[in-house]
């Protein structure tokens, strides 16, 4: 499973959680209905420094990663039911401005939506 795989959204939809811990980019899965985090892979915990127990079940945009709670990320998830977009972004990982690429994925009528995070060279 790679960040740039065309069928990444479909792969994520059927992947077992353990399999996601073996990929080298961050993956966050959240419920479409209320944006609460249900998948947070190991790569993501390493990037952010937040253990799973601090994020699971919390609303991702509002409470876990407020840096994404704006027109560029959160609002695209909320307004676009068919979403698969890659954008350059800057996270403040461990308080340091960190260039990343984000892949925003939402399949129409799917229970979960996905955010993939990769370091940007």
């Amino acid at each position, binding site marked *: 499973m790679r960040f740039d795989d065309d069928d990444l959204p479909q792969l994520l939809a059927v992947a077992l959680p*353990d399999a996601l*811990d073996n990929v080298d980019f961050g993956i966050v899965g959240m419920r479409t209905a209320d944006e609460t985090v249900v998948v*947070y892979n*190991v790569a993501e*915990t*390493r990037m*952010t*420094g*937040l*253990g*799973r*127990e*601090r994020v699971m079940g919390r609303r991702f945009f509002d*409470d*876990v*990663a*407020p*840096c*994404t*709670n*704006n*027109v*560029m990320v959160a*609002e695209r998830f909320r307004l676009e039911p068919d979403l698969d977009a890659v954008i*350059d*972004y*800057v*996270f*403040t990982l*461990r*308080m*340091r*401005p960190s*260039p990343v690429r984000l892949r925003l994925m939402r399949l129409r009528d799917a229970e979960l939506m996905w955010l993939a995070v990769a370091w940007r060279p």
Partner: protein
Amino acid sequence: MTGAGAGDRDDGAGDEGEVLELLYGLPIGLCLFRADGTVDFANPLVAQVAMPIVGPVGMSRIWPFLDAVAPGTSSRILEAPGDVVRVVQAERVVVEPSVSRRRDGRDLVFSLSVQRQSGGRWLLTMADVTAEHEREVTHRKAVASLEAIVNAIVEYALFTVTPTGMVDSWNRSGERLLGRTAEAAIGRSIAEVLDPSLFSDGIAAVLDRAVRQGWVEIEGEVFRTDGRGFWSDVILSPILTDVAATGFTVVVRDLTERKTSERALQRAAFTDALTGLWNRRHLFAHVQRLLADAEPGAPVGTIAALDLDRFKSVNDTHGHDAGDAVLVEVGRRLTGSVRRTDVVCRFGGEEFVVFLQGADLAAGRRIAETIRRTVAGAAVTLPDGQPLPVTASIGVAVLRADGTEALTGALQRADAALYEAKDAGRNRVTVADPP
């Protein structure tokens, strides 16, 4: 602990994770940058606001963001003397939606501070105060529209006093009604500004009552600074917060103004403009009331219908001003020859009707005779100083309480008697037979 990588120093499960969670979730934006603008540290709130404004490329230094939201701030930081620590202190920054890219069309407002840190670095903090700002804008609008209303009202004064009754706000309504400027009102007690007689139980007692009852109304004479007094109605209401009364609103209303204008309107509707006598409408209204209360068939009074003799020739010979002067003088003589309870009306032209309340036909004839003599007594002095003898013919008819046509019937009979008097040679009284 859960998940692969537990125990790894990067998984954030320990103290570091605790600190990071705190910083990530902080509702205030923090950004540490160097003198050249390079951003060393920033928390998510800074990225949340700045990313849509400057994009990923603009995030490595602070300047693009500052130049977009608070122009001029960059140079203030760069040019700040070395001993100044707090270069920007809680300054309100308003970012329009076209810049912030907020979709709801609202301004983004935050409070910005920048202070010097050690090592030539700067700390920027920003707190979102949009909600507070919107409340303030709403509040300012409410205050401004209230001020406009208060300044525009006439015949009322509206001001506020402190919990102990000292005037603490004043406006044009108070200047107009009470003739007092804000300087001459603010800081003085309400008793001094209105009149001590209104607060004979003491200001504290009146204010206490207002708190207990929700309001207090006092009526009495209020004095303007020019010494002119007027009768007024004063309403005090507490300005309540959830704690206690933080003061009182005071509304002063000029009652004399209202009463005189009511009287003036009523007068205009029921009197004759030239002579000031009652008019036909008043006579009918007055007599209908008496008839309604009278026993059927009982005598209510006597009608005397009076017409000036050869009045047309007065107008023709001496002009209308002279004619008007005669009518006014005759009106004065009529009023002077009857009792206060009688009603003297000008019916139109040179025709007058006097209603002699409670008088029977014999008494009516006597009074009518007095009227005739008074009218024909001294000559009327015209505006040009010329004396003009005037006489009148009078028809008298009794008015009984016998149905709705009573007044009309009595007026017709008095009128017929009046023309008999004219035919008989004028300047005389003729009595109509009872119906």
